[in-house]
């Protein structure tokens, strides 16, 4: 049965041999694929065909993988349910009435339904880990700078990383091994991921490992989620891990700080969509005229008004409601008189959260929480209340603000629905989260 995991089904063959030979990899549709449509789940880029490959796409193809297609996503990564996609929602393979999570919902659903062996998503505030948790698969958000973002269409570039999704921790780590490592085309990449072998850390050996439970993030979770989480922690203790409790005061400000920073960066990054170089033309005011075939005949255009009028029409037609909401709120947060009140305070909160995590990770090898505080909502249940939806990201966004790596691993079910446990490690400490995660599944 189809879960509408893909926006474009197009097989691209990779090299004939390599560590990922015979594997299929589904690629989120905000990651550029040469000659294949890359829509970002948006009407703005519905016909956009990338002229080049993202670095991660080059790397998985060199490793012998076959690209299975481009997966559905919340428009430009802005959402937690994959319902803001211009192409319609993806359904959760574990329960067709429920959302797969987001924004990389198509990637998680493709893996959960067996429509691809592995997948790539992107994680700006939880967009790999949330759908992994909701669909019952593994997802990793790498340390900021481990994986190249070249060819990833930017939403909030100080926060985002491309990350793998897979049925098991070991397979997710194998895909991470392939895509990690320095890239001269992304100046933020670091050499720590060169020649990575995170897969061999999936040995389940947590004897003597210190696991700090983030009590602030456990207390905010649904009781059913909490119960599955606590069973997992008991299981780790039984395997020889030392469990301690960690309280971090800064976390109460993480969602606010995340949304101010992400929206501010989005308002700047999405300024490039003006309907001139690509996207929906703002040429005429009638929508049907904008949809018409492209002209290369050199006739003088039918633009009404000036650049600003045309851009505003392009963006009205090309962006959906959530994208408009975030671009406008980001513009507001950066506007004269409000910059210090919102953006500067959010940067303070980000620094505070980083410092809190660094302190906690000096004492613990990994930190643990439920990945999502709730079970997957039903389709159509959550879009009317943006703020309630933002609050669902409470457990995932602190990791992006602190630039740290985290993994979501299926830990069991509640009411028949998957529950994910999240492990957070120190910067470039991917081995630790892979090891802890692999202990949960054994």
């Amino acid at each position, binding site marked *: 049965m189809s879960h509408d995991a893909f926006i474009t089904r197009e097989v691209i063959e990779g090299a004939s041999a390599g560590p990922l030979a015979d594997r299929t990899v589904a690629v989120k549709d905000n990651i550029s694929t040469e000659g294949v449509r890359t829509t970002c789940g948006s009407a703005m880029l519905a016909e956009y065909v990338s002229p080049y490959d993202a670095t991660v796409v080059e790397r998985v193809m060199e490793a012998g993988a076959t690209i299975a297609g481009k997966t559905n996503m919340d428009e430009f990564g802005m959402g937690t349910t994959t319902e803001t996609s211009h192409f319609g929602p993806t359904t959760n393979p574990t329960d067709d009435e429920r959302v797969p999570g987001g924004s990389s919902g198509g990637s998680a659903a493709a893996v959960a339904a067996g429509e691809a062996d592995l997948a790539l998503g992107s994680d700006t505030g939880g967009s790999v880990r949330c759908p992994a948790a909701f669909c019952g698969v593994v997802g990793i958000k790498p340390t900021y700078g481990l994986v190249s973002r070249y060819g990833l269409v930017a939403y909030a570039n100080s926060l985002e990383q491309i990350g793998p999704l897979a049925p098991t921790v070991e397979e997710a780590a194998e895909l991470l091994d392939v895509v990690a490592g320095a890239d001269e085309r992304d100046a933020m990449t670091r050499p720590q991921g060169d020649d990575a072998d995170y897969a061999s850390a999936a040995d389940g050996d947590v004897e003597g490992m210190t696991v700090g439970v983030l009590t602030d993030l456990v207390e905010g979770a649904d009781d059913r989620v909490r119960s599955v989480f606590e069973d997992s922690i008991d299981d780790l203790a039984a395997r020889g891990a030392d469990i301690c409790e960690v309280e971090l005061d800064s976390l109460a400000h993480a969602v606010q700080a995340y949304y101010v920073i992400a929206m501010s960066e989005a308002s700047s990054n999405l300024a490039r969509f003006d309907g001139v170089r690509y996207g929906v033309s703002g040429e005429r005011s009638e929508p049907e005229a904008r949809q018409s075939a492209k002209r290369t005949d050199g006739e003088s255009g039918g633009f009404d008004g000036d*650049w600003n009028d045309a851009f505003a029409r392009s963006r009205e037609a090309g962006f959906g409601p959530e994208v408009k*909401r975030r671009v406008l709120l980001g513009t507001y947060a950066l506007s004269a008189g409000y910059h210090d009140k919102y953006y500067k*305070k959010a940067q303070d909160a980000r620094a505070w959260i980083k410092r809190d995590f660094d302190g906690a990770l000096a004492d613990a090898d990994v930190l643990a929480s439920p990945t999502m505080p709730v079970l997957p909502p039903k389709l159509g249940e959550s879009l009317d209340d943006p*703020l309630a939806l933002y609050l669902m990201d409470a457990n995932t966004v602190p990791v992006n603000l602190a630039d740290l790596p985290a993994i979501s691993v299926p830990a069991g079910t509640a009411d028949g629905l998957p529950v994910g446990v999240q492990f957070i490690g120190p910067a470039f400490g991917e081995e630790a989260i892979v090891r802890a995660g692999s202990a949960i599944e054994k």
Partner: protein
Amino acid sequence: MSNGSVDPDTVRHVAGLARVDLAESEVEAFATQFAEVLEYFETLDEVPAVESEPDLTNVLRTDEMRDSLTQDEALGNAPDTEDGYFEGPPVG
């Protein structure tokens, strides 16, 4: 603008700055939603000033010619082109 009172004119002003036309129904809905979201952001006032010293290094490369997109590839996604150029709206 005080908290909880984002009026439609504020939404229109910000939409103008962001170059996004909005339907009247969107303006009304956004005014209500923005008030709620901005009220939540307000709690950032409690955050103390935090010294942060990011570990920054310059990343440089030599300025050398290298392959890039051809003109046709660069123009390939443009809605309108003329004589090898992007065609845009009139200026001013």
